[in-house]
Structures are given as C-alpha cells and as structure tokens.
C-alpha cells in the first residue's frame, strides 16, 4: 500500500470521479510529476456489495432472480448464466428444443439492446462530436439534436431488443423467464408476429449501425492506436469454432492468434482462471493460470469474440467479420476502439439470428420443461454476456441452500486491459500537457470502449459514476479534478 507521506510540492494527483456515461461507479487516478509527466494511471472500482456472502443461505432456485439485479444493462445475462447453473444442480443436461430456442432468442434480444445502448446512448457522442468536444453537448441528447436520424435508429434498435425481452419475460427489466430445466411460458403467436413485423427495419438499422462504426474506425487513422494493446483473448465458441453467445467451449488465443487452449469445458474454469486481489480496487484481476499472473491477463467481449471465432453463422455478420479481419490483413484486430465495430457486427448477428428464430415454428411450441435428473450440489453456468464471458458458480447443501458462490463478470476480466489502456492514453495524450477536461475525456473514451457498465464488476446493484485524481510521486492526494455542472473543471 502507498504510504501517506507529506505531499511533495512538485507533483500532482488528478482524479476523474465519477467516470460518466457508464453505468456503475469507477474512478481514474493519475499521478503526475512537476512537468506533467505521467507516473502512474489507475482505474479503480470503488463500490463493494458482498454478493458472494449474502447469497449464502438462500434457496438455489431463487438465485437467477437475485443475480439479475446485479446489472441494469444486462440483467438477462445474469439470469441466464445462473439458470444454466441451476439446470446442472437439477441434473438437467439438455433442455427441450423450444426452451433452448427461447433462451437463445432472449439472449439475442438482450445483446442487441445492450450493444445499441452501449454505442448509441453512451459512446456515440465521443465519435460524432469528438473526444475533446464541448461536454455540454457530448451526450445522447446532443446527438438527438444534431444527428436525430442516427440517434433515433439507435433508440429503436434498443427498443426492439427490449421488446423481445418483454415478450419472453413479461417485463423489459428484471422479468422472469427461466425455471430449472426450462422456461416458464411459451411465446404467443401474437407476440411472435408483432416482432416479425418489425424485423426488416431492425436488420436495416443494424446494417447502418455497422456501416457507421466501420466508417468511423477506418476514416480515423488515429483511432487505430488509441488505447490499443496486444493481448490474449478469451471467449466461448461454438462446436465448430463459430461465434456463440449461449453455450459452447472456452477458447483462448495469444495476441498473434496462436491457440492457448480450445474447446475447454467451462466447468473446469477453476483450473483455467484465477483472480488476483489488489489493494486499490474492489474489482479483482483475473488471469489464465497456464500463463501466470504477469502474462496471463486477457481481454473479453466483442473484440475477443469476433477475433477468436472462425466464422459467424449468419451471412451479413459473417461478411462483416471477414471485412474486419481483412482490415488487419488477416491478423487479429487489437485496436481498442474497434470494440465498437466488433460490437456492431455482433448486433447485426443478433438481428439476423432473431429473424431465424422467429421464423422457426418450434419457437411458439409449449414444450418448455425437460426431465430432471439426479440432484447435484454444484452448478456452473457460463455464457457470453454483451461485454464478455460471464461465469456463475454455486455450491449448495443437502437442503438446497447456497453455501458458496463465485461470479466472474465480463468487466472483471477486462480489468487489467482497462488499466493498461488508460495508461496508454495517459502517456500518449496527457503526458507533459496541461490537463484539461477535453484530455480527461480521452481516458473515459478508453473505458467506454470496453464497458459502460461497471456496476456488476463489484457485483454492485445500482449506479456508480468515474473520477481522475492528481497524486504526488509518493501517492499523496494533491489535487482533484472534477467536472462541474457546466463541464468546467474544478480543482
């Protein structure tokens, strides 16, 4: 831990607190010397919830509905990961075809709405107005004013994803849907038809959103090395190495694309991953055991998934994936800002997959619950959440009460990468300069590429906003930079 020594008159600490246009509470601290050279840059998660403890003693079947309250952006991901763990506990190895399809449809709806929100509502202002543009305008309201066409299509894309969730779970946020071994209600023909009615528009908007992101990335060469890192990538892939969000094996690759492992059963995640605790953040730092603490960190999420997968099952998204890879001459794309591009490839894949599922006659069947097998005392459920691989692990006792729980959420897997990206941006853009609001937003742009959602990182529920602080070389707080209501910086 840093010692509290007397502040040195020559060094400063800057804090961005809260980081905004994210859901959740994060803070960035910078340590600068007298010439404004960056000594240290850190990204902290400052909220703690204690989920692993307070879930103990609860009946296991309740878990999917508690845990979805970890996140206001992707609750469905938590419900589904926990539901997969609960299926295992109930000894169910195979859901009915309809239940599988309904869960997949729900998940596609969820990823679509979350990706739309991530790009349009939270990140697009940086790209449409500029990283250092006027903070008063740099938000979705500003985008609605200046680019209403773009903003409204984003709003509608999200709405469509939410409507799918509502049709299946009864509510747009925190509904119910999964039950042990299946789903609790069939999709009505009326609801299916209503969704089908709009899919052509959604496919159109999905393609436009992708084109916009592609164009933004390609047209701005300076985006290529912004916060960019060479890292390992981890994701789930389907049986044939295709892009897969709901069920598959784990694949990890080195930065050059060489395999670290492939098709690993996620139930062995404890042999694959460990998490390091550091004193300055409530968010842990996971790493691949095989490579060790120093070398084993990795990135997850859209960039990892699109890089890692050999193909995408739907034609438009597959064409987009090939184009993405050509952009990097067939190598992995490492550009951090290309997360948004990969995100829109996935959003389009969701729209295409939703279309396929809605046309499948089995989607409205009422064969919803599978036979149960022998009860087990442990369940592990893993899915690809919008922002990356999500692990849920529960142990229960004879009475069916939870005795141990472990969650590794997507944001946590990207913890080291977010820290490295911030350091890279700080060195490239801030080092040696007088710190301004515009420069500080550059740091936040890096965070937003990975994650607009820091709340589940600490298994938090609710909102936490980000902060930059100036520390002297001994680590003592010297100054704190925060943005005032008018976007001006207060010292």
């Amino acid at each position, binding site marked *: 831990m840093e010692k509290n020594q007397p502040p040195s008159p020559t060094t400063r600490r800057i804090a961005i607190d809260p980081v905004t246009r994210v859901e959740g509470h994060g803070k960035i601290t910078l340590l600068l010397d007298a010439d404004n050279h960056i000594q240290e840059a850190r990204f902290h998660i400052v909220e703690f919830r204690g989920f*692993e403890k307070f879930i103990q003693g609860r009946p296991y079947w309740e878990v999917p509905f508690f845990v979805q309250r970890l996140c206001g952006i992707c609750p469905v991901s938590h419900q589904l990961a926990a539901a997969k763990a609960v299926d295992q506990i109930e000894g169910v190895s195979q859901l009915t075809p309809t239940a599988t399809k309904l869960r997949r449809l729900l998940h596609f709806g969820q990823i679509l709405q979350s990706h739309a929100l991530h790009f349009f509502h939270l990140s697009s202002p940086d790209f449409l107005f500029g990283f250092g543009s006027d903070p008063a305008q740099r938000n979705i309201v500003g985008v609605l004013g200046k680019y209403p066409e773009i903003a409204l299509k984003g709003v509608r894309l999200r709405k469509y994803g939410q409507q799918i969730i509502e049709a299946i779970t009864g509510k747009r946020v925190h509904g119910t849907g999964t039950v042990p071994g299946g789903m609790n209600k069939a999709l009505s023909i009326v609801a299916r038809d209503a969704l089908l009615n709009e899919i052509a528009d959604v496919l159109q908007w999905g393609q436009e959103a992708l084109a916009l992101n592609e164009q933004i990335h390609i047209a701005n060469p300076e985006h290529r090395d912004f916060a960019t890192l060479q890292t390992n990538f981890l994701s789930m892939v389907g049986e044939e190495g295709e892009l897969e969000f709901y069920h598959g094996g784990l694949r990890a690759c080195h930065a050059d694309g060489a395999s670290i492992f492939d098709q690993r059963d996620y139930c062995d995640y404890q042999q694959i991953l460990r998490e390091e605790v550091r004193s300055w953040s409530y968010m842990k730092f996971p790493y691949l055991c095989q490579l060790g603490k120093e070398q084993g960190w990795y990135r997850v999420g859209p960039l990892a998934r699109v890089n890692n997968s050999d193909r995408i099952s739907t034609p438009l998204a597959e064409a987009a994936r090939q184009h993405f890879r050509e952009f990097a001459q067939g190598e992995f794309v490492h550009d951090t800002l290309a997360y948004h591009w990969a995100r829109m490839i996935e959003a389009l894949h969701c729209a295409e997959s939703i279309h396929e599922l809605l046309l499948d006659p089995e989607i409205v069947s009422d064969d919803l619950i599978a036979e149960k097998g022998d009860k087990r005392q442990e369940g592990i459920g893993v899915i690809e959440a919008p922002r990356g691989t999500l692990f849920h692990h529960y142990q229960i006792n004879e009475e069916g009460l939870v005795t141990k729980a472990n969650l590794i959420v997507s944001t946590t897997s990207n913890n080291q990468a977010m820290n490295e990206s911030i350091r890279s941006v700080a060195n490239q853009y801030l080092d040696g300069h007088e710190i301004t609001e515009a420069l500080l937003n550059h740091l936040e742009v890096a965070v937003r590429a990975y994650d607009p959602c820091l709340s589940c990182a600490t298994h938090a529920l609710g909102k936490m*906003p980000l902060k930059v602080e100036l520390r002297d070389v001994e680590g003592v707080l010297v100054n704190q930079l925060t943005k005032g209501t008018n976007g001006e910086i207060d010292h």
Partner: protein
Amino acid sequence: MSFLDMDERLVALLEQVEFNRSPLTDIKHCGSCEIGLIEGGVCNAENVKVLQEFRANCKTLIAVGACAINGGVPAMRNHFDLKDCLQEAYETGIGVTNPQIPNDTELPLLLDKVYPIHEVVPVDYYLPGCPPSADAFLQILGPLLAGKEPVLSSDHLHYD
C-alpha cells in the same frame, strides 16, 4: 436505465427538461435542479456525499426503485457482518490469489449497512418498482413538470 425504456417518448420529454448530472451526461456534480431522481441504496461514504449534494440542489427529490426505497437486494448484506462479506469476496472466495481486503485510500469508506435514501436525506416522492416502468416515470414526471401533484395509478404501485 429503465428510464430509457421511454424510447422515442424521450424526445418529447427532452423538449421540457434538461439533464444535469446523470449516467448519460458528463456532468460530474449535480447543479441546481427542479427534480432529482435517485436510485440505489446508500452503501458508502461517497454515496452519502453525492446524495447530500443532490438533496441540496434539487427542489424535489424522488426515490426511484426498490433499492432507493428500502435498500433492495444490496441490503441483503445487512444480515451479515461487513467484514465477513469482504473476507468472502477477497480472502476465502473461490480462485482468489493474493488474498487481502482492498483498503486503499482511493476506496471510499464502506458503511456498516446499506441504507435506503430516506434514512440519509428527506425524500419528497417514492417511485416503486424494480425498476419502475417507463410509464411510471412519465406518470410522475408529467404532473411535476406541469406544477401539479403527481398521483401514481394503482397498476404502477408494485414492487417487482
């Protein structure tokens, strides 16, 4: 984020309101406002500070959702000792390396319990639901913006 479920209706609302500090804007401190919407319980010293800042600046303060109103799911930790919760997460949990409880000065002090917001500052209105639907938001904001007393219809008075 349920607020955004207003979808296109957000555009009409924006003609009447301006966002101050929110998860959607880059305003880091709450300035003087007509209406403040607060969600989430109060978990640490930082939350208390932000909440007090909101109360001081907002003419009308609305507690939004189960967590703000009664602590919600996070308040389940109130049944346990804070130290046990920290130990479980950072020391005795599955797959933990370098076990230690994070204690850096950058991390705000955790409160012994999670508090609903009315136990910390006075609250003017409560909007229940987890989360309240977009319709419920509009039902309370509409009259308030028109200077009238809002009434929540019974179909929006639920806690799930």
